[in-house]
């Protein structure tokens, strides 16, 4: 195999997979993108505008797709099984083909928490309860039966994140800022609507995040209520009645809303777990894939030739995901160089 270009299978053609493919082909390798969905771009392709600059998500996805136009990409393809070979891996694909590669890059991303599992919030039961993904969809299409000029809109943070009962103790990291971003967008779309955010903590650590918060609170008058929503009901008109506790004033609050948006959290991708188990890659106790080292080698797994990029190891922002994808490409480059 000395003179052959090493093949690298990239599982998942979201932004992590696309960016890694771009870097790897620039380094002279032969990456192969395998994507389960019919299109590339992953979760970002479903989003409308991105913080912190409110740039269109489509722009980012399109630029990445353009840069990887020459990379072999198999969309609508699932992986039936992965096996370890003597110095590589073989992937049995759903179309019956077998892909033999020298390295595997997990860019499997995350799953959005299924909000109907928190039945007390009424997703799937009440018409006017939607998720962050549904709202982004509406921003894209402006078509949704459930959203008809709401006068009062609520956002519930941490749905399925930091929630032992739901089995996810980790913070999803991006929902605080996403909720504020979406609250601002809703307020801009419906200036006469009252907007409420029910939060546990606001974790606005990133560049310009705090500015969003200040703008939402000071300039747009969005109400921030610290406390978990306990129960969601429906009144005779089909509006949603939210009961929560304002833990700052120590009093129970009850608000009637026209629209309730649940910020579904980031949870691990069960497919990634199954692939990892097949080739003996360690899974962390939060369900995400386990890096060899959480400080210095986040993109490396416990197995030689298996690398990680993006949200398969935990919740990430877009810049972090892109940086990790580049870092993974470089780690793969060093891996082949050291092998000779």
């Amino acid at each position, binding site marked *: 195999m000395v003179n052959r270009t090493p093949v690298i299978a990239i599982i998942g053609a979201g932004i992590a997979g696309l960016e890694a493919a771009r870097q790897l082909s620039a380094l002279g390798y032969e990456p192969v993108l395998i994507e389960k969905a019919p299109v590339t771009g992953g979760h970002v392709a479903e989003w409308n505008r991105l913080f912190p600059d409110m740039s269109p998500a489509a722009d980012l996805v399109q630029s990445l797709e353009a840069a990887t136009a020459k990379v072999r990409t198999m969309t609508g393809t699932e992986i039936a099984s992965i096996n370890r070979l003597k110095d590589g891996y073989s992937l049995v694909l759903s179309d019956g083909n077998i892909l033999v590669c020298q390295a595997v890059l997990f860019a499997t991303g995350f799953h959005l928490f299924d909000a109907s599992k928190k039945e*007390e919030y009424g997703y799937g039961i009440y018409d006017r309860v939607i998720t962050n993904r549904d709202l982004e969809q509406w921003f894209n299409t402006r078509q949704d039966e459930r959203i008809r000029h709401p006068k009062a809109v609520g956002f519930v943070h941490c749905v399925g994140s930091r929630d032992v009962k739901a089995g996810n103790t980790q913070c999803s990291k991006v929902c605080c800022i996403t909720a504020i971003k979406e609250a601002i967008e809703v307020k801009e779309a419906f200036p006469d609507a009252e907007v409420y955010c029910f939060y546990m903590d606001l974790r606005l650590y990133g560049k310009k995040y705090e500015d969003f918060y200040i703008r939402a609170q000071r300039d747009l008058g969005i109400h921030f209520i610290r406390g978990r929503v306990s129960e969601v009901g*429906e009144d005779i008109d089909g509006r949603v009645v939210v009961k929560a506790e304002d833990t700052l004033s120590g009093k129970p609050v009850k608000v009637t809303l026209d629209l309730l948006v649940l910020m579904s959290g980031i949870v691990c991708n069960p497919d990634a777990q199954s692939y990892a188990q097949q080739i003996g890659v360690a899974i962390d106790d939060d369900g995400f894939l386990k890096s060899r080292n959480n400080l210095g080698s986040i993109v490396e797994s416990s197995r030689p030739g298996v690398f990680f990029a993006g949200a398969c190891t935990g919740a990430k922002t877009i810049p972090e995901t892109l940086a990790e994808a580049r870092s993974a490409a470089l780690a793969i480059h060093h891996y082949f160089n050291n092998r000779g």
Partner: protein
Amino acid sequence: MRERFANGFDPFVIPFLIGMAFVLGYCIVAMFRIIIQLPKADRKRFLLTLITPKYIWMNIRDIFLNCLIHVKLWKRNKVLGYMHSSIAFGWFMIILLGHLEVILFLPNRIHLFYYPIFFNYFVAETESTIQGSLLMFLMDFFLLIILSGIVLAIIKRFASRIVGMRRTTRLSLMDQVGLYSLWAIFPLRLLAESFTAHISGGSFLTIPANWVFRQFLGNDLHALPTWWAYSIALCVFMCVLPFTRYMHIPAEMLLIPMRNAGIRIRHPRKGFALLEVYSCPACGVCIDACPMSVRKVNCKDTTVYLNRMLRRGNERRIEEISDKCLLCGKCTAVCQVGVQGPELRIAQRERRAYALSPSYSAINVRPLASAVVHGAGGESGGVLYFAGCMTHLTPSIRRATASLLDKAGVRWQMMDPENGLCCGRPLMMAGRTEQARELIAKNAEIIRASGCDTLLLSCPICYKVFLEEYKLEGVRVVHHSVFFEELIAGGQLQVRRDDGLKLVFHDPCELGRGCGIYEEPRRAVAAAGELVEAGKHHAEAICCGGSLGSLTLSYDQRRPMTRNALENLTVANPDQIVTACPLCLATFVRQADRPVRDIAEVLDAHC
């Protein structure tokens, strides 16, 4: 028949007499202590039943069936049933026949305690008469039965799986002394009787054994030491008995009449509770049954260990075990003595002194009461539906219930459409009975104000407390699974049956073991699809793990219990899991690999 010794005495009976005197004295003192500790009303009630013919008959029958024959254990496990009844009944028969022998042949010796026990040592030529040989035959027969039980017991101790138990109790030191002395008693009796069989006579067991021993022993010098050993084994067993699990033998004989009299646990360490603790045979059936035991560390939090800790007075562990339990009641369901593990724990929780005790007496229920009066529109009767907190957290159940009531044309209104009070059951489970009573009084006021004739509950946790603790004369308290089953049977609800749909019913603890409702929900489920059963069901159903009963189990610790319950439910590979409790639903939904539905949702989808 003649006596061998004119004075009818030999020093080897002394150990037996010591043991007998000790155990009898101990048990009599303990019995009086327990009766004195009962609250006055309970005591009076209990003593009255002892002289009522109906109860006397009931007590004799139950003691015979449970203490000697072990019918409950037979139903559960034939091998264990045989093992226990062979030892208990066999021993009883040997004592009884021993007395019969003395009465028949040596009535002048009946005042000697030890005579029936060591009869064969003191007599000669017993089988020469027809009665004598018959009695000897029966003695040997029952001894053989006991010995076969002992062999099973030995097998069970070293390989519990053979007799169908996955886990058994780890014995304390005293229990081991008791166990080994019990094992020793009957082989020693066989040996002793065999060595003297050529003098006293014997039957099919002792005479051949005597013949074999005589072939190589040649003299009678072994006889007396063996009788000594037999007497000493009896003495050791009886002397350690009060400090071992074998205390259940005398304790159960008092427990059964008290339970028949309807006495309940009022204090975790006194009176009836003490009796239950002593009645625990420490067999360990509750270990395998306990839903917590899927985690090996929780095996020591089962009822058998609670009883042991209560006997030892280990306060730290008592508190820990009492708080951890899910109160699912399965230990009581499988226990052949029926030790009420959950009630013991709640009684323990009630003793706790809280630094802060909220009072609900100030809650003004007038607005809630006037809302239901207004809702009734001046008419009395009708159904009042109390959803309760858990149904409000699972709105699909509330919605399906409302839809079904409308479809059946029932006149109904909701008791807590927006605001409602807690039913009180969670507080009761936490041992806060005072606070629960306050809420019960408030809710009862609202229900009476509504003028309804039926109170409908979709949550078994609420159902149990409304059924047992509320005094609602003229109001029928009914769980929605039962109510809908009646509507289906009465033709008010037309359910389309989907023959291809396989449904399994999960018995919620509070509905099944708690209130004894098993069949009505099954009939209702069977109206909507094909009913399949879980691996363990009815009274042995496995708690979902979400129970409010546990005060200290974390969600991480509960997760394997939920997984285990789901595995049990899906053995027949059903399409849907149906339950009748919003808490079970919420717990299962988060981990199940297939849809989990409330019974109301399933029926509503097929109506």
